């Protein structure tokens, strides 16, 4: 049926005398079942799964908005939606994707499930806070989307809500207030998850799991957690100010009362640019794990990866105003230099990913294809980002489709890494594999669709087509380029449908075993799905690849700084199964 597996990997029998992690036995665990179990659970795996499913539903909703937008733009005077409906659609497409899908999927979904297991912890540090952050996320999502059912429609000021467009005169109605309220809720959910991740990583690691033995994904999630704590409170404060301006007669962002409209942009982007890395770093981590496992090698340049992640976090607080170059009131050279510097740690990461694959025994599973697709697409998005960091080029392309194409290359790359993460960790979460043949079809639709979708937008942007317009001049070339872009969006839509089909087709069909990929990190040591409180026993942790060391004692990882063992003819011993 499928080319799923190499010979299955048998775990050796457990070494004797490993203490149980908890005092109470596992069989005596009785709890509520059904919907009450879902509502009252504090198990990070169930909460994480709820997060994952909810955020994938949000991706499908946001993707549907995107398809309507592209259908509208397929002809110059599209009449599929009205102009105000179009404003609502692009606002909610951006809001749903950024606030409700990419972030929560990463730090609430996969990280919530994987971080405690990767460091050998029984649960998150604050299980009840973890449950609360899911409920805040879910209610926030419902609040934001319920704007469509109000008389004035959903929020329609763009996902950035620039003042003074977002004040009560220019955007009256409850749709905008629901957007603010939903964002307050999801913002708090993100902050609580950030607290939880940091505390878990700092205090609940297994014995021997030193900081520099944590998997790169966990390192990236720790840095993401720190960035969440630095950035999200700023957004929450800004939203409260915006709400006060709309309803309580303050003039923080309005010129009439002596306020400063650009202050909103400062506050928003002081959150907004670290947010870009909050979105990106988890997926960098997923790609790192996938590439290392499917290349049959340890991560190349482990410490360089950690250093690059920390450098990105450090620089991310000093780059916000590169979104505001054309306001004319920001310090251009400072923000240009800082933004260009971000390319250095990102380059280190790309170099290390290629170094990990170099001379590895690459296994082109769906997860690996997705990770490679991520690498290529992210490189395109990253390189075009370097153009935008240069003020003269940014003046030329600001608010054109070039910017849209740039960040869609980036986020579509993140989507590929997200799908790779689902194919890689899905068996660990559920105990069942997804179908590889449908998965590969999904990858090629997604990858080719993404390039067909973004490339015409780059050209359109350079030719001056502004973003956020529902109609555009009759120009044969613009129409052709928009048609290609719409075609690419349709391919991406098909790939999403293929994913849903794959989940339905593979539902409990291909049992995976505990370690189907012969993977390296600690989460593959436990059963699939992991038991309550995650581990029956733990291996000795002597490197960043404890499961690999346990399964392949003849090819143990070496501690950092040691030279590799050489074979008789002077070659490095290849780690293979």
């Amino acid at each position, binding site marked *: 049926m499928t080319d799923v597996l190499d010979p299955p990997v048998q775990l050796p029998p457990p070494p004797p005398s490993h*203490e149980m*992690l908890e*005092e*109470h036995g596992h069989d005596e665990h009785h*709890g*509520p079942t059904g919907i009450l179990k879902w509502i*009252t659970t*504090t*198990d990070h795996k169930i909460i994480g799964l709820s997060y994952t499913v909810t955020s994938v539903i949000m991706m499908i909703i946001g993707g549907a908005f995107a398809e309507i937008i592209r259908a509208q733009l397929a002809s110059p005077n599209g009449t599929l939606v009205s102009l105000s409906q179009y404003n609502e659609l692009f606002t909610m497409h951006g809001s749903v994707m950024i606030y409700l899908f990419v972030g929560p999927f990463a730090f609430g979904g996969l990280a919530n499930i994987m971080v405690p297991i990767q460091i050998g912890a*029984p*649960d998150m540090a604050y*299980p*009840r806070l*973890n*449950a609360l952050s*899911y*409920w*805040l996320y*879910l*209610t926030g999502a419902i*609040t934001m989307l319920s704007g469509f059912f109000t008389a004035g429609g959903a929020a329609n000021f763009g996902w950035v809500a620039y003042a003074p467009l977002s004040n009560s005169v220019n955007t009256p109605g*409850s749709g905008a*207030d629901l957007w*603010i*309220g*939903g964002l*307050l*809720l999801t913002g*708090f959910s993100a902050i609580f998850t950030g607290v939880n991740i940091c505390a878990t990583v*700092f205090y609940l*690691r*297994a*014995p*021997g*799991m*030193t*900081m*520099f033995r944590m998997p790169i994904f966990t390192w990236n999630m*720790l840095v993401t957690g*720190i960035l969440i704590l630095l950035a999200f409170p*700023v957004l929450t404060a800004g939203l409260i100010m915006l*709400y006060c301006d709309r309803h309580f007669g303050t003039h923080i962002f309005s010129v009439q009362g002596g306020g400063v409209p650009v202050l909103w942009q*400062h506050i928003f982007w*002081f959150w907004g640019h670290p947010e870009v890395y909050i979105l990106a770093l988890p997926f960098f981590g997923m790609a790192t794990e996938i590439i290392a496992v499917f290349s049959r090698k340890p991560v190349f340049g482990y410490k360089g990866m950690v250093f690059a992640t*920390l450098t990105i*976090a*450090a620089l991310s*607080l*000093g780059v*916000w*105003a590169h979104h505001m170059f054309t306001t004319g*009131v*920001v*310090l251009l050279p400072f923000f240009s230099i*800082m933004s260009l510097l971000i390319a250095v740690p990102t380059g280190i990461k790309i170099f290390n990913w290629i170094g990990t694959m170099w001379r590895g025994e690459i296994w082109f599973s769906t997860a690996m294809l997705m990770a490679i697709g991520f690498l290529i697409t992210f490189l395109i998005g990253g390189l075009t980002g370097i153009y935008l960091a240069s003020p003269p080029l940014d003046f030329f392309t600001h608010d054109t489709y070039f910017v849209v194409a740039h960040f869609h290359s980036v986020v579509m790359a993140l989507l590929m890494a997200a799908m790779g993460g689902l194919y890689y960790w899905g068996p660990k979460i559920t105990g069942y594999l997804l179908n590889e043949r449908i998965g590969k079809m999904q990858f090629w639709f997604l990858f080719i669709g993404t390039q067909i979708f973004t490339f015409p937008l780059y050209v359109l942007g350079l030719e001056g087509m502004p973003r956020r317009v529902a109609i555009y001049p009759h120009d044969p070339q613009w129409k052709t380029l928009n048609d290609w872009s719409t075609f690419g969006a349709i391919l991406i839509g098909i790939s999403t449908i293929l994913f849903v089909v794959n989940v339905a087709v593979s539902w409990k069909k291909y049992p995976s075993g505990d370690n189907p990929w012969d993977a390296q990190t600690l989460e593959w040591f436990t059963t699939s799905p992991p038991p*309550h*409180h995650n581990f029956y026993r733990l291996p*000795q942790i*002597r490197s960043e690849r404890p499961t690999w060391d346990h399964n392949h004692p003849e090819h143990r990882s070496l*501690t950092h700084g040691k030279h590799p063992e050489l074979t008789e003819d002077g070659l490095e011993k290849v780690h293979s199964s």
Partner: protein
Amino acid sequence: MKVEAKVLLYLGLFFGIMNAVYWNWSLENAGGVMMFAGMLLCFLPGSYYYFWSRRMKARPEDDPNATQTSGAGFIGTFPGTSIWPFTLGMGAFFVVLALVFGIWFLIPGLGLAVWALFGATAEGRRGGTH
């Protein structure tokens, strides 16, 4: 503990230096204040971890040669199930709806939130369910 402290302190130090350059160069206050607050947010937990890392011996998770038995024992109380996060979440939901649809939503909102506060505290005193 040392690595955790270093990560936060170096991040805070970098934010401080970056802010010193930015504030003097840009003559714009909003970003400077936010970066300064970011620096403090790193220094606060970072100095706490640094303080303790010099005064306690390495925990099992900081010891590269630790065995699994060295970490055995009581880790903490992990409640198996709890209704209070859901109650508090719904309370927060209604409070936010009060911002949009009318002040009367505060009654169920704050009611649920306060109920959850008492319930979660009582549950915490009991030690939670396993």
